[in-house]
């Protein structure tokens, strides 16, 4: 496959950036999108040019480090992470636009790399439980109803890649925050901080400059882990409940 790539190049956070065109030849349909970018970078290095910077780590679709907007869609045309997107989903001769996540809360560091530490601060504000650490607790010490375990697990799948923010027209982090709140608030272990958690995490989310939810639902359609829109409803319910209970 021969492809034309238009990639966002930006030397640093304060530098101006632009879409730059590259030709990549002999791309195998079995390559992942990141391997295709590796091929381009090898060529750029051989030519003495600066390689394209992009985030990646596990390349197994479980860490959430990679993530770029491909042809206007977060993680590209398939519902998976960029590392698990294969070139067979493109056609020979295609022109592919590659851009970084765009959000005020995710400033561009370089090229396709953005700083997602805003998510870390949202997690730090309440995405934990208060429990003595050390040896693993006895598994049956705290009974968890099956339905609660299922809901918690479904939401715990969130890998914090930021695709929801990138896809949302408002750059909203509601789905991310919802996944974290619903995960911990569904479980008895998360009970002691149930109200505190949702209020603090929504406050932290707002303080980072993410937009609000307008229910477009695009966050769930791009989420590689399939976090459902219903989680946002649950987050809202938890928030209103905590406000009513007057947790200050």
């Amino acid at each position, binding site marked *: 496959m021969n492809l034309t790539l*238009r990639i*966002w190049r930006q030397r640093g*956070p*304060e530098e101006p950036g632009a*879409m730059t065109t590259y030709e990549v030849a002999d791309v195998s349909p079995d390559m992942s999108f990141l391997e295709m970018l590796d091929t381009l970078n090898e060529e750029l290095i051989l030519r003495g040019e600066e390689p394209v910077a992009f*985030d990646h*780590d596990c390349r197994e679709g479980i*860490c*959430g*480090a990679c993530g770029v907007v491909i*042809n*206007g*869609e977060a993680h590209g045309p398939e519902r998976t992470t960029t590392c698990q997107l294969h070139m067979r989903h493109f056609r020979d001769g295609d022109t592919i*636009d590659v*851009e970084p996540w*765009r*959000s*005020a*809360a995710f*400033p561009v560091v370089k090229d396709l790399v953005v*700083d*997602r*530490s*805003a*998510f*870390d601060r949202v997690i730090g504000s309440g995405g934990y439980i208060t429990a003595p650490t050390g040896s693993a607790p006895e598994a049956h010490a705290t009974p968890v109803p099956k339905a609660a375990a299922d*809901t918690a697990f479904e939401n715990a799948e969130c*890998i914090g*890649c930021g695709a929801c923010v990138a896809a949302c*027209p*408002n750059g909203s982090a509601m789905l991310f925050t919802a996944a974290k709140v619903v995960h911990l608030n569904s479980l008895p272990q998360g009970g002691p901080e149930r109200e505190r958690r949702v209020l603090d995490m*929504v*406050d932290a989310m*707002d*303080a*980072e*400059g*993410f*937009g*609000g*939810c*307008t*229910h*477009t*639902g*695009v966050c769930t359609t791009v989420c590689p882990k399939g976090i*459902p*829109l*219903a989680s*946002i*409803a*649950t987050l*809202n*319910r*938890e*928030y*209103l*409940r905590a*406000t*009513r209970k007057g947790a200050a």
Partner: protein
Amino acid sequence: MALATRTPTKAPTPPAPGPPRRRPTTAAGRLWHSTVGKKAVMAVSGLIMLLYLVAHMIGNLKVFFGPDEMNGYAHWLRTIGEPALHHGWFLWIMRPVLLLALVAHAVAAYQLSRRDLAARPVGYAHRGRRSSYATHTMRWGGVIIGLFVIWHILDLTTGTVNPRGQAGHPYENIVASFQTWYGNVIYIVAMLAVGLHLRHGFAGAARTLGAGGRGRERAWTLAANGLALILTCGFLSVPVGVMTGLVD
């Protein structure tokens, strides 16, 4: 999650911290100052206006039963609550409530929209799939409906712009208004805007108030579509009735 596996040569600029936000202590203050709470204000004010619209639409259908029944109904509205309330007081109690709901809805929408637009300062070069028509016309559709309300009050409440404008004769005024081309155009455009606004807004309000959930998403979407369709058809039946000579 953005992992600390790389050491950026230049630390990305964190979002401007600004003065430390003083957390509002009252439940109302907390609601108004968070994106989730402000959205709840929009949901509740929207539902208040929706309840009014349902009653209004049903009342409008009286026009098909002739001038006596329509004008009698309009007179009866002023007698609700008598003898406890003075003549017309019921309407004068309802109007400030509706005005408050409208102002709260519009102010919250304006403030949230400002925030949403600021959350994506740099757009994508490659625009992705657009959301549904109802979803991406919420803001301007709302403005159109707001302007229509002003026109509608001048037309059929005060009679200022009505070709007939005779107090106490709503039936004749309605017929006079819908015998002008502009009366019909303005009304029909506004009612289509109301339908689209409700179609997205009602399901969104359910989610905002935490009523949506696993398996209930579909039910709320169906309810929103049904409600939007019934209200739009109900309202549009009046100008169509005048135009076809069913009402004259």
